[in-house]
């Protein structure tokens, strides 16, 4: 039993003494691990595998190993994929920068307001959260009917007020504005609820003692609320960035990725929509898989940098 002797010395690695069958922890993680392997792990590696092939699951005879050629196409300026892929990736990054600040700041303001003892606050909490339960397709279609130019709700009222309405869905930058507005309306409630829960965890005595010390409410917000919300805000920021990176349904239903650009692609076509079109409309699953992996790599780097940035400041 020399191994056991060694283990006793290395208390850092083994803070608790384990008893019972050592397989037990693995049995505990097994149910999730199984689903993870079937629905995430296997598709992930299979996707990586087909990104090295000219691939069509219905034409096994035409499935050729091309190694990095699918990735090379994404970096060759005169390939079919180059202009449309980078245009779409640029659009998605643009959307992330446009959407994340309002999707953090507006829920923060709403959460702080709804954390005070205003009459009917549960009603307002419900109202702001309600759109989040809608499916992406419903939100996209609602967006189209709100913003479309011939009798759309928004233009109808703008014209009644004598304001000349822009072509929300078919001109820039209004197409982004429409998509952004509908996204904020749709998802603001989720971030709000998370921030609200964190606000309720801040002990009331901190505010009381600050008030005794003469701090006004703005000073209390900056010196107590913001620092204590920090871990939750990091979490909210990261999940919002990921959610915005995955933009698909709103442009799919509202603009179809348009307005079209003569140079290729659409001005609001997100990268997820481009991958879908490459894979399932053009049946080019190999290049679509390579696009997915490039985007996944960028997202992983993005999230990693985020956590690093916030961690070093603590």
């Amino acid at each position, binding site marked *: 039993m020399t191994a056991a002797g060694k283990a006793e010395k290395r208390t850092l690695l083994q803070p608790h003494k384990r008893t019972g069958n050592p397989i037990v922890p693995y049995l505990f993680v097994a149910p999730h691990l199984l689903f993870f392997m079937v629905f995430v792990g296997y598709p992930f590696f299979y996707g990586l595998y087909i990104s090295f092939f000219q691939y069509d699951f219905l034409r096994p005879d035409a499935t050729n190993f091309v190694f990095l050629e699918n990735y090379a196409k994404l970096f060759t300026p005169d390939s079919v994929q180059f202009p449309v892929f980078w245009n779409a990736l640029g659009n998605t990054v643009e959307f992330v920068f446009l959407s994340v600040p309002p999707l953090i700041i507006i829920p923060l303001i709403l959460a702080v307001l709804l954390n005070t003892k205003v009459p009917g606050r549960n009603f307002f909490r419900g109202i702001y959260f309600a759109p989040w339960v809608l499916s992406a397709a419903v939100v996209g279609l609602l967006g189209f009917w709100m913003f479309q130019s011939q009798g759309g709700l928004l233009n109808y009222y703008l014209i009644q007020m004598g304001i000349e309405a822009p072509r929300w869905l078919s001109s820039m930058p209004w197409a982004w504005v429409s998509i952004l507005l509908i996204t904020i309306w749709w998802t603001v409630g989720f971030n709000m609820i998370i921030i609200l829960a964190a606000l309720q965890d801040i002990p009331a005595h901190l505010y009381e003692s600050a008030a005794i010390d003469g701090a006004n409410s703005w000073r209390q917000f900056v010196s107590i609320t913001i620092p204590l919300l920090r871990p939750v805000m990091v979490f909210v920021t990261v999940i919002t960035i990921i959610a915005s990176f995955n933009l698909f349904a709103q442009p799919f239903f509202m603009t179809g990725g348009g307005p*079209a650009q003569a140079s290729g692609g659409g001005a609001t076509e997100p990268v997820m929509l481009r991958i879908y079109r490459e894979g399932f409309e053009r049946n080019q699953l190999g290049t679509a898989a390579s696009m997915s992996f490039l985007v996944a790599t960028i997202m992983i780097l993005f999230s990693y940098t985020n956590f690093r940035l916030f961690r070093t400041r603590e």
Partner: protein
Amino acid sequence: MKFKKWIFPGIGILLLILLAACGGGSEETAVSESDTPAEAPLVVEEFDDSCGTVELQYWNPFTGPDGPFMGEIVEAFNAENDNISVVMTTQSEYYTQLSTAAASNTLPDVAIVHADQVATQAFRNILRPIDEIVTANGINGADYPAGAWNAGEVAGRRYSIPLDIHPMTMFYNADLLAAAGFDAPPTTGEEFAAIAAAVTDGSNNGFMITSGFPIRQIFDMLLYQYGGTSFNADGTEATWNSEAGVQALEWMLAAQSDWSQPNLEVDAELNAFKGGTVGLIWNGIWQTTNVTGDGVEFDGQATAVPQIGPQPATWGGSHQLTMPTQAEPDSCKDAAAGTFIKYLLDNSVTWAQAGQLPANNVVRSSAEFLAIEPQASIAPSAEHVFFPPAVPGITDAYGPLDEAVSSLMAGTATDIQAALDDAAARANQILAENKDNYGDSP
């Protein structure tokens, strides 16, 4: 140390699961490899009692109001044929459904496929050649408009038979036209311009054209009317950047600035037309029930699109009847499918009531069909409908043209020739990539 001892077997099990899963995947591909359709010849026998009762699966994408009309034909067929029972399934996300069914060997016996998708689906092993079925049932190419018939021939073999043609259609607000002093819709470019100009005033638009669907189809139609083509005959090169292409877009831009509104989004013309403020629009025949008759509060009518350029040409699509690939071909089912296809073609006058033009010339000139309006007055268009070359992935190559026409109509691009040239260059790359990807024959 116990932790370390157990982590390695843990990872080992994990990898084993992964490997097993990956192995399973490649095994599946190996199975479908031996089922390529070319190796399974069709054996056609006359369908007779020796087969007993045969059940056929029939898929179509008719999720709209046209579905029930097709159901009516199927019911009538089942009532007439004691030994064949057809089960109709209407699918949305149609080509994705066909792909997944192909991967799991559960394709139906008969399926509708759009004309411009036949080559792609044939090359992807979803469809099988049906030359023998066509011969055995006495189906003759001479009975169909050449464009619609040729769309079903891929790499020298027949994969589909046209059921219907759905052309670009002109819808007009007869009340607005009458108020402007016209009692008949335009049939020529001059008449069209006169009516559109007369109807256009501060609140009404004589003609409305968007910068979204179906403007590329409108461009295509005018391109052919001015004597151009979208692609060369073998589908290896885009040819829309011709003089005819420039003329077509000049007409569209002039129409937009003289009679329409700038930079409208998709469906804007339909919504405005239904609001009663637009004299003329062009959209697919499938919009008939939406913008005519009880669909609107004014006298909405439909008729054939006018001829603007020197050549007659109409954009159109076509639903084609096909027989998807089977893992285990069954000669009884194949014969029954042939009988069913023949029945659908002969009885397509019921289908015409759903708002389509029967592809079969005999049905289309029958007294029974000519009594159905507005289909009968749109019917002459069917002769002039053109189709893209039957090469796989041809619809991909329209992508750059969609973008060019859309940006020109939206005003984000202004140089017509440059935009069309650029779109043609990118389409040629797509055609070359598709040729490399799909090869020369299914």
